């Protein structure tokens, strides 16, 4: 704890947790280490995330697989997280860094809320995340890139919004839908056919799960629904009431319907 008696306290005051860490505990930040030259050993990679909007909100879904080269590093990994009450983020890229960046982002938003007594605007949150990804650029140049997808409910405008990022921290607002990660090409193709305006929330969840199913069909690094281990994608919806995790039971039913309908159709692709 900094000494509250010192006169320069006011100049020290910041509402940003990351700024505070940079000043007092830089070793805790996930992205400040200068890496020595050389090859980074293989590390788990997180894969596909899809996000789409529907009237009244947005949702984000991620499969459960992490890969390390040709090996499945994890079948249980979760890559979509609530960032705060009204926003969610998903991550693709180096899993170890991504999970820490997510944790840091969650604390950053909560810290601001506690210090200032009010929530950051959705654009403010999206910008903060962009700055963090830019902070990770040196690591990305060593091959440890983290690419997030951010979605939230804009309370001022009353709509759900989606943001994608590039590795330099560039922030782009996406309309309708977007996906990131190794299976994103296939998921995007599926979303183009499945997404339509005026989806209900339940339909939107089914569309997201089906897009991930299509990604898993063609991308070996994306995991499909796993009825043997009872593993389903992680899906969060965000609407006026806040972020909510879709229950396992709902997802099992949706995944079951998709597998069944594909089996009935009996087609190759």
């Amino acid at each position, binding site marked *: 704890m900094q000494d*509250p*008696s010192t006169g320069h306290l006011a100049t020290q005051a910041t509402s940003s947790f990351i700024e505070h860490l940079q000043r007092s505990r830089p070793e805790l930040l996930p992205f400040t280490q200068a890496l020595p030259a050389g090859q980074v050993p293989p590390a788990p990679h997180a894969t596909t995330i899809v996000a789409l909007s529907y009237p009244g909100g947005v949702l984000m879904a991620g499969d459960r697989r992490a890969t390390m080269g040709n090996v499945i590093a994890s079948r249980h990994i979760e890559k979509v997280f609530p960032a705060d009450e009204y926003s969610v983020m998903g991550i693709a890229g180096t899993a170890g860094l991504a999970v820490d960046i997510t944790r840091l982002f969650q604390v950053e938003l909560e*810290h601001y809320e506690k210090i200032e007594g009010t929530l950051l605007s959705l654009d403010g949150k999206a910008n903060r995340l962009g700055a963090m990804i830019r902070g990770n650029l040196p690591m990305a140049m060593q091959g440890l890139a983290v690419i997030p997808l951010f979605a939230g409910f804009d309370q001022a405008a009353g709509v759900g919004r989606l943001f994608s990022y590039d590795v330099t921290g560039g922030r782009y607002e996406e309309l309708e839908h977007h996906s990131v990660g190794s299976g994103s090409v296939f998921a995007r193709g599926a979303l183009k056919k499945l997404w339509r305006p005026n989806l209900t929330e339940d339909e939107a969840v089914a569309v997201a799960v089906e897009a991930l199913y299509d990604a898993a069909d063609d991308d070996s690094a994306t995991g499909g629904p796993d009825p043997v281990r009872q593993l389903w994608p992680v899906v969060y919806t965000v609407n006026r009431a806040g972020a909510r995790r879709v229950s396992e039971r709902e997802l099992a039913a949706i995944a079951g319907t998709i597998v069944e309908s594909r089996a009935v159709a009996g087609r190759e692709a």
Partner: protein
Amino acid sequence: MTQQFYVSPEQLMKDRADFARKGIARGRSVVVISCADGIALVAENPSPSLHKIGEIYDKIAFAAVGKYNEFESLRQAGVRYADVRGYSYDREDVTARGLASVYAQSLGAVFTAEQKPFEVELAVAEVGHTQADDHLYRLTFDGSIADEHGFVVMGGLAEQVAESVAREWKADLDLAGALRLAVKALAADKEVDALPGSAVEAAVLDRSPESGRGSRRAFRRLRAEDITQLLAGEA
């Protein structure tokens, strides 16, 4: 060179303590009450934005009386301490006891070493799964720390208010009951029976926020209309 007069350490400490006490006595009181639904924090505070009660962490809240700039800087330092600790270890490793002892050290250092002591009194509250697991710490301007049971009263007329709370406090009060008791006690020195909802700042640490609101953050600020509604409800 002018010679300073000798002042004995006893006299020096006494003067500083008197100074701090005077500053605190001018302020209005704060009541923190442990009840069946959680911990209620209630302050007499006509300002809707300059808070005396704040959230520190998942299950920890802060209440203060005295000079706003001093306790606000302590509150922010507490939030930083808790967030750094929770980020570097784990969320459950942030405890009211740890925070209270850091506050005690800061207050103690300022009391002995600085030009003037802080004119503040703090309460740090942590809600547990059962009422027996609740922790209430009271910190005074000189860094002394007290582990309180059931309720904490601080501020100008703390003794009068505390007497009033002690008369009616029961462990099984619900939130509305605790709020009514606090508001009545805060009016102990006034002509009225209880303060109006608009003159009160109140917050609660919910005992089970995960099941109730789906959030691990127990702290919930009560809006003026919530307070009025809770006060109006029949006991």
